[in-house]
């Protein structure tokens, strides 16, 4: 079964609003990564947060990690229509090589 569960499954907002997506996982992780996917094809890496980190920023993106609750959130501030995509969290487990285990994803729609 999938390690990560994301909510909401779908999110629709207006341009300029903030979008928050949440990810929960089941077992201890080495790191957690967020990816974006447009049109059901290749994924683009957004940000990686290690298990000993609590928050990370990259441009308009802010990721938090709470290992005690086994959860992470991705915040996109001042959203744009171009942010419309599916967003996936992926976890890398200890002693599991480099493979990633993906959540089911959140489909974000930003309306102009």
């Amino acid at each position, binding site marked *: 079964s*999938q390690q990560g569960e994301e909510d909401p499954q779908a999110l629709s907002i207006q341009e300029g609003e903030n979008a928050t997506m949440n990810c929960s996982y089941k077992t201890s992780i*080495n*790191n957690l*990564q967020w*990816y974006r996917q447009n049109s*059901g*094809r*290749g*994924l*683009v*890496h957004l940000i*990686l947060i*290690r298990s000993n980190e609590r928050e990370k920023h990259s441009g308009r993106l802010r990721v938090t990690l709470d290992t005690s609750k086994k959860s992470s959130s991705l915040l996109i501030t001042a959203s744009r229509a171009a942010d419309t995509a599916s967003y*996936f969290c*992926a976890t*890398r487990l200890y002693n*599991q*090589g*480099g*493979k*990633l*285990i*993906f*959540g*089911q*994803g959140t489909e974000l729609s930003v309306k102009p």
Partner: protein
Amino acid sequence: GAGVSQSPSNKVTEKGKDVELRCDPISGHTALYWYRQSLGQGLEFLIYFQGNSAPDKSGLPSDRFSAERTGGSVSTLTIQRTQQEDSAVYLCASSWSGEGNEQFFGPGTRLTVL
């Protein structure tokens, strides 16, 4: 430099035929991964290569699936006797090593089994 490339971009085949999917990773990346994405199952890990060795094949769904990597570069995923449930987008990714670095994904191969 060039990103991860995959070929073909689309493949339509008849049930029972064999197919080969190719992945060209980013030059110098030692780790290579295959994933599969389908509506019902989401994004699933299939197999991981470090160099030419595959230390983790745990995601291959059946013995009809196999993969190899040669010269620490190109990888081929082979599906024998395809079934309709094999229809999915097959994604390849590479990274500098298997240890916690970001993975760079190719555009995928959309496989349709009729």
